[in-house]
């Protein structure tokens, strides 16, 4: 963890991050360099702070009025917690996909994909159409929906809805994509599609994924961080974490002895 802060291969530089909800300290002194155009998995038992860590990366934790943070997070060198940076701007650069797929029920498939652009002032039909196709292709959904782009988004299956949410997040062209257990509510086939998609996307995007599924972390990620009780226990190349971790706690967790 001694990478220079402005290394272009580092997307996110997290230094001494602590997050409190009221008096409760849920993240303690976390420092990580998230590699660009790679997949970083966050694993750990429930309540270890991994979702909070993820949400701190695009300031979504601030939706909880009790939340407070210390430390520093830089996105390609820019301090995202700087006084003059609006959370809205951070979230345009750092997109997010949630555990439960949540396409907007009042909108069609196309409208869902373009909503982030339209509500940020993009009007040109041509750009919107281009971005729709491009995003749906990247989310591996284009072939399944290209004949019914104006159908309601909630007419899609669960797995398709989640890929639509990924397309919607990609349409605003973020630099980093955060995924909070994106496949935990899906069946094995839909899960596999999401995992294939993650491997495709890392060519262009930096991905941070929280997962409860250790096989999934091993399959899709390049780096893995193990959190326990709000602390970062170990952070290393995924192969190393799953074969020869340096901490006993990590070994116990990845071999299923606890958690």
């Amino acid at each position, binding site marked *: 963890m001694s990478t220079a802060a402005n290394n272009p291969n580092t997307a996110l530089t997290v230094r001494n991050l602590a997050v409190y909800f009221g008096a409760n300290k849920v993240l303690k002194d976390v420092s990580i360099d998230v590699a660009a155009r790679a997949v970083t998995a966050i694993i750990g038992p429930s309540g270890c702070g991994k979702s909070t860590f993820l949400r701190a990366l695009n300031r979504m934790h601030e939706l909880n009025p009790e939340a407070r943070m210390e430390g520093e997070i830089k996105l390609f060198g820019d301090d995202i917690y700087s006084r003059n940076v609006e959370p809205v701007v951070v979230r345009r*650069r750092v997109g997010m996909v949630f555990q439960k797929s*949540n396409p*907007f029920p*009042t909108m069609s498939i196309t409208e869902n994909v373009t909503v982030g652009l339209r509500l940020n002032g993009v009007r040109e039909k041509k750009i919107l159409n281009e971005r729709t196709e491009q995003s749906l292709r990247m989310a591996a959904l284009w072939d399944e929906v290209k004949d019914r782009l104006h159908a309601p988004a909630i007419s899609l299956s669960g797995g398709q809805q989640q890929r639509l949410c990924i397309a919607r997040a990609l349409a605003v062209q973020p630099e980093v994509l955060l995924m909070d257990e994106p496949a935990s509510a899906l069946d094995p086939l839909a899960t596999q599609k999401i995992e294939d998609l993650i491997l495709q996307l890392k060519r262009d995007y930096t991905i941070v994924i929280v997962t409860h599924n250790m096989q999934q972390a091993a399959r899709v990620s390049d780096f893995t961080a193990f959190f326990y009780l709000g602390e970062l226990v170990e952070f290393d190349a995924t192969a190393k974490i799953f074969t020869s971790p340096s901490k006993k706690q990590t070994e116990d967790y990845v071999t299923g002895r606890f958690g």
Partner: protein
Amino acid sequence: MTAPNHNWRKFKNSFMQTLTFACAILVVTPLVLVFYHLIKEGFSSINLAFFTQLPKPEGEIGGGMGNAIVGTFVLLGQAAVVGVPVGVLGGVFLSEYGGTKLNWAIRFAADILNGVPSINWGIVVWGLLVVPMHTYSALAGGVVLGMMMIPLVMRTTEEVLQLVPGGYREAALALGISKWKTIVQIVIRTAMKGIVTGVLLALARVAGETAPLIFTALGNENWPHKLTEPIAAMPLQIYNYAIGPYNDQHRQAWAGAFVLLLLVLFINIGVRFLTRDRFKPKT
């Protein structure tokens, strides 16, 4: 465990079942009675003249309450202009902004206001508008009905906005959409049918108000001309005719009550129609 004991239990059970059923019937009875009387007394008096003509001078036969029907719609239109924006935006504040303590105070105030006797609203607006303007007016009537709608619309709006799953708000905010646009374009749009339902029910509720209009709209024998003049309204006309001495006025009062009930009924049917495939969050 013994047989007599069992029978006693069975008796208690069937007794309570009958009692609750009787009470349920008792709830519906007034509606059936009101309908029966209004149809019996009012339906035969409804003809084209009733809807299109002005009231005849006292003692003369015939005429209608066209001006009161138009007046009621004018009053409801004004009430919507006053009540809907304030009520909906207030509901948005309660649901989307606002701290716990402040919200508690606002909700408490709204619930109290919902229970304030309607005549008190009439007195308040009489003091606020009628006295300074030196005249009863349609404007004052519309304002009083609108003010009565505000707490109703606010509470229902808050409730339906709370039904919108938080995941949609998070998804929109995570796309870098500002909070206000998220509320207008995602949250309100998702809850639109519920909001419209709340507005319609509030309109139906104030459509039959009489007491506040006595202090404000007053009533009028002619067609509505200006908002600064007194205006006729169906509940007022029904009241005036019902306490009058003439049989023909009583006949028209029944007919007016019947038409007013039909109006409220149609609004309620409209609500059912709207909520038929009301948005249900997928779980």
